[in-house]
């Protein structure tokens, strides 16, 4: 299993994602200016402040050369995971529905939160049980998930909301407590919490590892099939 982690100018949690993925498979960095995905099985668009969050978070990163390959990879069914700034990039790129708005508090928030697993049928939460609670940290200024009401209804009905903040744990005012959504096909997933920061027993929770393990299990099954 080979993960690729995109690195933009300003990416901060790229190495963290690389280290987390390396616990589960091989992991390489994908430079923003290259058009080469190096044959990876899954792409991770990491957290940070790509291009300084200029204009809107993710607005400029989505046009980076490597993103053309990532978009095509996603269209063809490849796994794409967007974490925090990565989630913002995927929404700006139209690979995921909705948008991320400034936190209701208007401040940066760091907090260890609990998210509930809503759906386990896809490649990102397959190793979890429905209603499992994962303890994962959030750290962002612009994490309030938004989509028009009709769209939110549709997403929930279609099982595209994979993670929800547990009651009392919504740190940013996301509508319907949405913490992470996937696309219609289920191969592209974005979430504001940072699973790569919940993989090391030295640091506390290791619940985030299950997302990477889900991805590996999915890829391995498809190789065998």
């Amino acid at each position, binding site marked *: 299993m080979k993960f690729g982690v995109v690195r933009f*100018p*300003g990416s*901060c949690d790229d190495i963290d994602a690389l*280290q987390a993925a390396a616990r589960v498979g091989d992991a390489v960095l994908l430079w923003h200016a290259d058009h080469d995905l190096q044959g990876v099985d899954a792409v991770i668009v990491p957290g940070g402040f790509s291009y300084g*969050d200029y204009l809107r978070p993710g607005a400029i990163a989505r046009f980076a050369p490597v993103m053309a390959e990532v978009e095509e990879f996603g269209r063809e069914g490849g796994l794409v995971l967007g974490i925090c700034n990565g989630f913002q990039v995927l929404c700006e790129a139209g690979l995921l529905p909705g948008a991320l708005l400034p936190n209701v508090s208007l401040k940066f928030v*760091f907090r260890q939160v609990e998210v509930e697993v809503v759906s386990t049928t896809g490649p990102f939460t397959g190793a979890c049980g429905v209603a499992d609670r994962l303890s994962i940290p959030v750290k962002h200024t612009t994490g309030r998930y938004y989509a028009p009401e009709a769209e939110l209804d549709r997403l929930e009905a279609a099982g595209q909301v994979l993670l929800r903040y547990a009651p009392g744990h919504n740190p940013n005012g996301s509508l319907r407590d949405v913490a992470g959504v996937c696309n219609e096909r289920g191969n592209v997933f974005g979430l504001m919490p940072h699973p790569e920061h919940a993989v*090391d027993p*030295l640091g506390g929770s290791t619940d985030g590892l299950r997302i990477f393990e889900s991805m590996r299990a999915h890829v391995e099954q498809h190789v065998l099939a």
Partner: protein
Amino acid sequence: MSSSTSSLEKRHRQLGLTDGEYARILELLGRTPGDVELAMLSLMWSEHCGYKHSRQLLRRLPKEGRQVLMGPGENAGAVDVGAGLAVAFKVESHNHPSAVEPFQGAATGVGGILRDVFAVGARPIAVLDSLRFGEPSASGRSRYLLDRAVAGIGHYGNSIGVPTVGGEIYFEDSYEQNCLVNAMCLGLAPHDRLIRSAAAGPGNVVILLGALTGRDGIGGASVLASAELGEGDEAKRPSVQIGDPFTEKKLLECCLELLDRELLVSLQDLGAAGLTSAASEMASKGGVGLTLDLCQIPLREPGMEPFEIMVSESQERMLCVATPERVGEVLGVCERWEVAATTIGCVTEGGRFRVLHRGVAVADLPVSVLVDDCPLYDLEPSPPVADLYSGSDAVLTGSESPAQTLLALLRSANIASRRPVFEQYDPIVQSRTVRRPDEADAAVLTLGGRADSPAIAVSIDGNGRRVACDPRRGAAEAVYECAANLACVGAEPLGLTNCLNFGNPEKSHVAWQLTEAVEGLAEACDVLGIPVVGGNVSLYNEAPTGPIFPTPVVGVVGRLADARRAGRLGFAREGDAIGLVGPFEPSLAGSELAKLLGRPPVGELPTVQAAPVRDAHDTVRNGIRSGALQNAHDIAEGGLVVALSECCIAGGIGASVRLPDGLDPFGEAPGRGFIVSGSPAALGGFVVIGTVAGERLRIDGLLDLAVSELRDARERGLTEWV
């Protein structure tokens, strides 16, 4: 003739040079300095750059140690932490700019200290900040400064991907007119990537990296940092530096790659006094000269004058020296990271600093005049004849019950939970953080991915109120407390950095505070065997009402044997015995309770007995390392009862305690007393004062409160203001 002479004289005074200093310049140069030279000299000879009133005094601080790789005088100090790794670190102040524009002042303070650390070749891995403001309950301005400074620190640190892992905040009337913003940074490097700033090799090329040069902070160093703040500092706003963490992130990655590829001869960051100080200090350390061509420098503003270019404090710029054969590769790496890089001059023989503008030399003087010949002044210390500071408004009368007193202390601004502040910082990016804020008395970071990788601890501490009572003992306490915090996580101290925040040293009572404080720091460092590897001085923190509390702030970095055994703050298990460790003889002088009672910072602080203090630190450190102790917490503000409360709150569990006879429950003696817990067998040789149990804190004959009530009081404290 006479009119041009008198206009030159007036100008030197406008730039902050005394008549005596100007006369010395004339003597050293053998002629009148040109405009650009005068501007350069006024900054290099300012207090902020020249350390005129403190350099002699700082020689008292011990700096030797087997583990010291870089001592004072470089951009940052560095210590060996094992496995071929070095940790570089330093603390710096950005007090005056933060009073004028707190968001950018604090942000650029962080940016500046980050650059100091990667200038020596270390990747910044952690930031801590030490802040002081006026009382939030009394002052809208102080609430504003607090809010904006915290936002600025968060903005810069979070955006650049360096975790803010610790810090401290104090609120005192004394800081109302002069807030303090001290930023500390730690960086990591393999030994062989550490680089010094000395320029070398006549014929080598000088390259400027990073942001465009504009009018940011023109005259900042001499105008702001060497004078007391008075009215009309709004007009200084155009001079405020604006920081851009995105540019600095690219600059940082670029510089580290240049060093990994061994493409540079030397590296220096541009801070106070911009190009002037960076270039002249590089030349001075290398014993060489430099020639710079201002027309090569990429400018942000049209029509900038030569002196403006030389003293601009535009952020996110570095200076490096490379051999001519390497220049092409250097520029290539910079282009890949989207960092502007321009050749602006060369290294020369002969030790002269030459600045060319449109082919004409606008400055040509010996490097030594700029760097070494800055006059140093002897302080004329003499103890104050009357009390310098009054008491604050009393919050308590003294007739409250111990329970009411405890809740008032937990709610008080200096003790309450800092969660509303530290939730605005990212403490975990780079995946090294093993102990986050509020989990332990010091931050703990692992330096490698493996269980046996080296791990370090860091804390930043100081207490101006206690130093105001007794500068020598109060300053020593800062060192003991910082080392005690490290012991609580199982770390031994390796090196210390300090920031000395004081008033106007030309006044004899402030000179006395400064001299006594440095002596106290030195004594404590000698007792504990901790070398001082670098630091910073911020003077003239004074308003018409008088000087700030003398506030030495110290940051200490230490090493743990095993990150898996890093200590924690909270009680852990029902049934554990609670021990009191250390020669703990507390008193009320200088304490938080004394402050709440409205008493001024007056009174004798407890003495320190060296050997018992060292033993106590060793006992706690070893107990944590062996796993015998389940928690360790040093007793600081609020005394023993507040410390016990903090252990209960952090652990979510109660305690049943009997205090030793005659022990002042709220008295303080920082750095000398610890609360620990562990199995009764593990605490066999300790002074046991109670047991971890239940959901209440019960202290015999004193109070009985639910832990939830303690937590509510503590959580509430700052939420009104942040």
